């Protein structure tokens, strides 16, 4: 499977205290890639790097088959971008903003844009500065989709929107994707939102990509185990042990948080003389939090 976005060993320093470190990112063509991470983890910086707004200190970036930042204008012909904060000129009316935007994209579909205006109940004569947050969110996704892009880059597109506006924005995006098989790169810290729509997930923390895997593997593979007679681990385990918490005085046994869990791995505990008492599913948010905790503990140890 080829990739729509590829980062290879990308480094970028934003300040003395924060940098993107050796970032390798692979977004498969046609995927809905959820880019998760807490605030300040480097999601928006990564998006600015991939849209050519920032120049990496080292490493290479390819987006839609073009080198970035070298070939940024050609890459942007095929990319619909919704930034974290509204970027269109506030003194424009909606119809003026659409006409301005359309002039830069030969692939602009004005019929589709008109349909979406009706569907979103946006008044073309309304001034952008007077739009509500929800209306602005709808307008930005409308502008990005009317370009008919092969890649959509969405930086927290539903942040601060009410549930109705959020559903409208996500539905429009999903309809477009099902029709065109476009690739979507969507960043958010709203874990549950991405859980429903994405088929790949990447997790950023402190400028590093701490995990990148299919959503199914992420959801099913992270478990909380109750382990009796927990051994000291020497050698390799068949799963990735993210975290190990001692007996908490309430529930017997140690608590292990593991990644890459499969049913047949139960046998491992027999071989080390331990008892597996329980296997508990974690939802994406719990898995996400455990993954971040484990990454941070690992960093602290180093």
């Amino acid at each position, binding site marked *: 499977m080829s990739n729509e976005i590829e980062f290879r060993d990308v480094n970028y320093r934003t300040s003395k205290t924060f940098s993107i470190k050796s970032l390798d990112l692979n977004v498969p063509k046609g995927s809905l890639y959820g880019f998760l991470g807490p605030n300040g983890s480097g999601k928006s910086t990564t998006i600015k790097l991939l849209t050519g707004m920032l120049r990496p200190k080292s490493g290479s970036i390819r987006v839609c088959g073009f080198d970035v930042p070298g070939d940024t*204008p*050609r890459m942007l012909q095929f990319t619909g971008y919704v930034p974290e904060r509204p*970027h269109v*000129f*506030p003194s424009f009316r909606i119809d*003026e903003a659409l006409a*301005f935007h359309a*002039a830069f*994209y030969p692939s602009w579909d004005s019929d589709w844009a008109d349909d979406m205006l009706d569907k979103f109940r946006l008044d073309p004569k309304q001034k952008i500065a007077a739009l509500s947050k929800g209306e602005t969110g709808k307008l930005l996704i409308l502008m990005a989709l009317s370009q008919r892009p092969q890649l959509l880059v969405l930086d927290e597109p539903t942040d601060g929107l009410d549930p109705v506006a959020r559903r409208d924005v996500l539905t429009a995006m999903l309809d477009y994707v099902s029709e065109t098989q476009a690739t979507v790169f969507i960043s958010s810290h709203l874990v549950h939102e991405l859980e429903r729509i994405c088929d790949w997930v990447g997790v950023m923390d402190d400028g590093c990509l701490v995990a990148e895997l299919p959503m199914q593997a992420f959801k099913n593979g992270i478990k909380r185990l109750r382990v009796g007679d927990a051994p000291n681990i020497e050698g390799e385990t068949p799963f990735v042990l993210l975290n190990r918490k001692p007996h908490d005085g309430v529930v017997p046994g140690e608590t292990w948080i593991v990644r890459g869990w499969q049913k047949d791995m139960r046998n491992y505990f027999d071989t080390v003389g331990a008892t597996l008492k329980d296997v508990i599913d974690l939802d994406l948010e719990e898995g996400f939090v455990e993954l971040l905790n484990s990454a941070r503990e690992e960093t602290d140890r180093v």
Partner: protein
Amino acid sequence: MFKQILYAHWKASHLVLLPLTLAAFALPMYSASHFSVTDFDVSSGFFPALAIVAGFAMAATAWQWDQQGKQIYAMSLPIHGWEYALLRMAAGSVALMVPVAALWLGSSASAIAASPPAGVVAYPHSLSLRFLNASVVAYAGWFALFSGRQRHQLIFAGGVLAFFVLSTLLASTFGIVDLSQKLLEFLLSSPGPFEVFTGSWRLLDV
């Protein structure tokens, strides 16, 4: 594409363009009505001042919306940064033609209406051309300054101010050459870039 950039510029600048255009139309009339062969013509200084203000206003409005959005929108468009800057510059230059045309109309009308004494001639076309030249020079300078980030603009303005204050202080304290004076002389005299703002600017002259 250019049409849309021009429209965006018009939208951003039309409120300042209107008074500038009226002033440019009225100024030659004022100059003609206050003409005196012997006295110093105060209005002579108004023309370059208006050119500087017009250049400033067009350059500021060319970048105003992009600055508000930290240039994110411009950078997300599928054209090179230099192309976008050129389109913006061209749009501002076209808008600048409105006060220039108004000044030409105003001076032409004043030249027709005026009844100058013998030996005095009206120069509506050369005055308008000079105003066009001065406006474009002013616009180009302001445009370059406003295209930078706010931080860089402040650094530049601070640097220029510090240079003038320091060189004046050093010259007056130690009696050495005043560099700021030398720089001004270079900029304002031929072939300096700002020479166009100096000299006599009169609609009616001998």
